[in-house]
């Protein structure tokens, strides 16, 4: 008879137990009767000898080992009945905990997606990136000749493959779309064990171009978006970068490559890249963007593999033709969770958010505990009756705990529903990013486990304190119906006040954090007077073809800008390779006169109207004009920082510089402009502006066009499209956005942080407010009698009012002081996210404290007013 059977066949077992015990007694009676006793005597004696029937029954039930569950069922039933009887309380608590658990689950699912998700291939923990370390940094780059040498070490590495991230131009009807993609080695899918929803992966062993290489693999997402999940997608044609390829497979949805947040939608064999750059396989004088991925042989330790790798590397570098690269060591970086850019970028923010929502949850739990405590005093009588008739204390505690766990479970369920909402809302912020982050946030096992664990802990913590308090009763006074606190001293520090003060403290911590993050966002957005982006609309202009002639962009831009200038409603417009705050980082080697410029310069190739379009103030000299044509003398404009760096106090005008790559082209400096930042968090780079068409080739097949106009972005875009259709139909307009939109995308992280932390701060304020209000008004209710007597004896109502407010203020002050100390202590955690404001900024802290002080007083005022309006005659009559 199994435990389970004993549990579910309870009723049958009870009947059998009865029958067995009855059988025993009847036999005993029969025996005594046959010994000569009367029926009645026999019955009495048998019963006497047998002992307490109910007690024996209980012991037999205990022997079944199912008591725990039976009690739990009983507790649950009882708790449900009690909760249904108090719908107001139940709804309030479920909402409270639902919010608390919901925000936690939402942030955790983001955290999980960004920080913990593993790459969807078999045994991801055996996979490593092959990287080389130079100074502090590790670079997972390589080149093909080196990879071939590593591949030969099949005694250490099970497999070696590599991928290279890129974007592809895909023809979609008349338009051309940019799609994130990768070139991968021919063995990539097979070697890693990538699974396919439809079709297969690449099978070529060679990365040399061949007719077999005209194939493509799609991501599940792209298949759904572009092909509507057509089952017959395999074998269809797709035009990528102007070449017709055959689709051979679609990866499973879980596979998102090795770059979290940037899954490749289209994957092409490396051979296609080689077809474009025939020297790619032999190029050994540079690192390419190939990221090598290895899987260690079973039984080979990371250490052994690194040693073997280091040997190959040193040998490679010792060869004279490869001596160009200085490297300290080679390392294997775990590829289990993919590459780390997204983690580095968001982990600090997500950790801070996680901390904040945990604080919100703690505040919600404190509120629940307060409500339970309040109910506890209301149920004091019930508890004391049960305790006095012999109920075990633990049994009562367990029953109260059952109730709070039930509430927490209901709250948790609501929380998971709210979270699935919340996460999609939060991930939509990420999509507005400058580099759209694609996060596949799903309520997977880990997230649900987190929600369940949070729920249970919440339930247990919420239940335990009030349960212990409720069962530790002064039985006599509770039964006599005396208020427990008659004559209690005013301002006594009860558990409840400590809880409320704690809430205020945590609230201050959150509001301070939110304040700092909002100020950071504000500081990053504040204009520094070096340019004005207001009213500027930006476009990408892309060439449809490839292999552009050298004068392609000067001609194309001239044609488009000329036609645009005929539109009177538009202001100045210009083309440029980079624009303010676009995160350009690349620098070019340059020499001022004969002195090389340390660290190089940011080279921006622009058309003459650029400074006008962005209102960049000229400090000295002149701007570019239409006279600075390709055949005119070479001219350049530098920014103030470069002027100081290269020329010190001397006048830079008339001096010359040249780019390292073009030593024969001396460029004369004709002007100096203000420093324009390209990264909102960093000071401006030393910058050189040259005229499009004079010097500086354009590597990309696109350029940025900026148009100043008061018209709506869409109107400007339509104008531009019509212009381009008229003069240069070989161009495509992409990514229309206003400067402010681009800026917003750039500061996504900061905006999301400021927004979410602000909301969490408000949520915490409301919760703490409710908590304080509840405690104060309960106090007033309990002290009605005392207040009534005082008023009857002539106390001024204003003094009563002041007294209650003073108590609330005391709780508030203690909370604020503790919170301020906590804010100081935790300032390190948030300082990495701030810009131009200290984590211990006194102004922010003071502001937060003021908000809390006002909130506390408001929460105390309503109960205080009620206290002052107590009618003495009513109170005195009632007792």
């Amino acid at each position, binding site marked *: *008879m199994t435990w389970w059977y*004993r549990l579910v066949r309870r009723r049958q077992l009870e009947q*059998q137990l009865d*029958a*067995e*015990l009855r*059988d*025993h007694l*009847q*036999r*005993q009676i*029969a025996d005594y009767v046959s010994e000569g006793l009367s029926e009645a005597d026999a019955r009495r004696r048998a019963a006497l*000898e*047998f*002992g*307490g029937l109910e*007690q*024996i029954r209980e*012991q*037999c039930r*205990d*022997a*079944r*080992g199912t008591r725990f569950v039976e009690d739990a069922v009983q507790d649950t039933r009882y708790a449900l009945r009690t909760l249904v009887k108090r719908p107001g309380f139940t709804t309030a608590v479920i909402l409270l905990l639902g919010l608390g658990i919901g925000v936690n689950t939402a942030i955790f699912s983001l955290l999980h997606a960004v920080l913990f998700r593993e790459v969807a291939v078999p045994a991801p923990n055996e996979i490593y990136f092959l990287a080389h370390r130079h100074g502090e940094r590790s670079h997972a780059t390589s080149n093909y000749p080196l990879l071939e040498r590593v591949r030969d070490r099949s005694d250490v590495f099970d497999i070696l493959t590599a991928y290279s991230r890129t974007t592809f131009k895909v023809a979609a009807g008349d338009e051309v779309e940019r799609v994130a993609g990768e070139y991968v080695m021919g063995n990539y899918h097979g070697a890693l064990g990538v699974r396919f929803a439809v079709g297969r992966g690449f099978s070529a062993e060679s990365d040399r171009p061949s007719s077999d290489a005209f194939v493509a693999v799609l991501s599940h997402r792209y298949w759904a978006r572009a092909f509507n999940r057509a089952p017959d997608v395999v074998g269809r044609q797709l035009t990528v970068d102007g070449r017709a390829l055959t689709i051979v497979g679609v990866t499973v949805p879980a596979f998102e490559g090795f770059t979290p947040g940037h899954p490749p939608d289209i994957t092409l064999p490396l051979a296609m890249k080689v077809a474009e750059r025939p020297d790619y396989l032999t190029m050994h004088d540079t690192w390419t963007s190939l990221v090598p991925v290895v899987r260690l042989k079973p039984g080979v330790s990371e250490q052994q593999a690194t040693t073997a790798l280091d040997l190959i590397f040193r040998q490679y570098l010792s060869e004279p033709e490869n001596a160009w690269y200085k490297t300290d060591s080679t390392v294997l970086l775990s590829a289990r969770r993919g590459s780390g850019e997204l983690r580095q970028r968001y982990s600090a923010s997500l950790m801070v958010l996680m901390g904040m929502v945990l604080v919100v949850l703690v505040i919600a739990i404190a509120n629940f505990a307060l409500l339970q405590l309040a109910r506890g005093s209301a149920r004091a009588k019930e508890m004391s009756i049960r305790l006095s008739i012999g109920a075990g204390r633990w049994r009562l505690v367990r029953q109260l705990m059952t109730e709070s766990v039930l509430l927490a479970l209901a709250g948790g369920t609501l929380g998971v529903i709210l979270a699935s909402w919340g996460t999609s809302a939060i991930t939509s912020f990420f999509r507005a990013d400058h580099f759209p982050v694609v996060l596949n946030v799903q309520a997977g096992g880990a997230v649900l486990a987190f929600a369940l664990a949070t729920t249970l802990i919440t339930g247990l913590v919420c239940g335990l304190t009030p349960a212990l308090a409720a069962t530790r009763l002064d039985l006599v006074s509770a039964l006599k119906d005396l208020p427990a606190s008659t004559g209690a001293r005013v301002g006594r520090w009860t558990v409840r006040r400590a809880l409320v003060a704690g809430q205020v403290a945590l609230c201050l911590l959150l509001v301070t954090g939110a304040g700092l993050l909002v100020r950071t966002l504000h500081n990053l957005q504040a204009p520094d007077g070096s340019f004005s982006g207001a009213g500027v609309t930006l476009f990408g202009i892309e060439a449809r073809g490839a292999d552009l002639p050298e004068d392609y962009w000067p001609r194309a831009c001239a044609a488009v800008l000329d036609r645009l200038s005929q539109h009177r409603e538009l202001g100045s417009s210009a083309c440029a390779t980079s624009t303010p705050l676009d995160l350009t980082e690349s620098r070019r080697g340059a020499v001022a006169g004969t002195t090389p410029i340390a660290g190089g310069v940011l080279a921006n190739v622009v058309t003459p109207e650029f400074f006008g379009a962005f209102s960049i103030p000229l400090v000295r000299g002149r701007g570019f004009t239409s006279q600075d044509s390709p055949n005119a003398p070479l001219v350049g404009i530098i920014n103030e920082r470069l002027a100081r760096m290269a020329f010190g106090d001397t006048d830079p005008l008339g001096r010359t510089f040249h780019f390292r790559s073009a030593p024969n082209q001396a460029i004369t400096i004709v002007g100096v402009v203000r420093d324009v930042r390209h990264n909102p968090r960093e000071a401006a780079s030393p910058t050189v502006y040259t005229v499009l068409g004079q010097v500086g080739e354009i590597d990309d097949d696109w350029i940025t066009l900026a148009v100043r106009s008061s018209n709506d972005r869409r109107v400007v875009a339509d104008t531009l499209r019509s212009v381009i259709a008229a003069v240069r139909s070989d161009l495509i307009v992409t990514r229309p956005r206003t400067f402010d939109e681009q800026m917003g995308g750039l500061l996504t992280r900061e905006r999301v942080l400021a927004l979410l932390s602000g909301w969490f701060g408000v949520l915490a304020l409301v919760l703490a407010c409710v908590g304080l209000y509840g405690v104060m008004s309960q106090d007033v209710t309990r002290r009605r009698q005392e207040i009534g007597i005082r008023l009857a004896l002539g106390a001024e109502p204003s003094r009563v009012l002041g007294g209650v407010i003073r108590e609330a203020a005391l709780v508030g002050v203690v909370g604020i002081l503790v919170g301020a100390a906590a804010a100081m202590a935790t300032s390190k955690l948030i300082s990495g996210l701030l810009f131009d404001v200290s984590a211990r900024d006194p102004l922010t802290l003071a502001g937060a404290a003021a908000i809390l002080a006002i909130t506390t007083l408001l929460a105390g005022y309503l109960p205080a007013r009620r206290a002052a309006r107590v009618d003495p005659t009513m109170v005195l009559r009632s007792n």
Partner: protein
Amino acid sequence: MTSPKSDLPQGTLDLLILKVVAVGPLHGYAIAQRMQQISRSVVQVQQGTLYPALHRLENRGFLKAEWKLSDTGREAKFYRLTRPGRAHLEQETASWERLIDAIALILRTPEGETS
């Protein structure tokens, strides 16, 4: 208790039950009777404590219960020793005997020789 009989040492009730049932299937009342006969003047077995012990042994798999028609014409619950029960009985008997021998040995040792 006014009775001069001693209480059953802890843990021995189970052993006695198993021993009694080892003879063949018995119902609760018969087990109680047998135990009273065997231990008549020495130990006190409270009849009521028998049943929780029987149920415990049944749930541990040492006894198997069956409802059978009995001499009274009613169905009664008969307990039978199972194979694990028999093994347990032998094991417990052996350890019990070892304990008794050891205690007897200590008690027989003349005073002063123990140290």
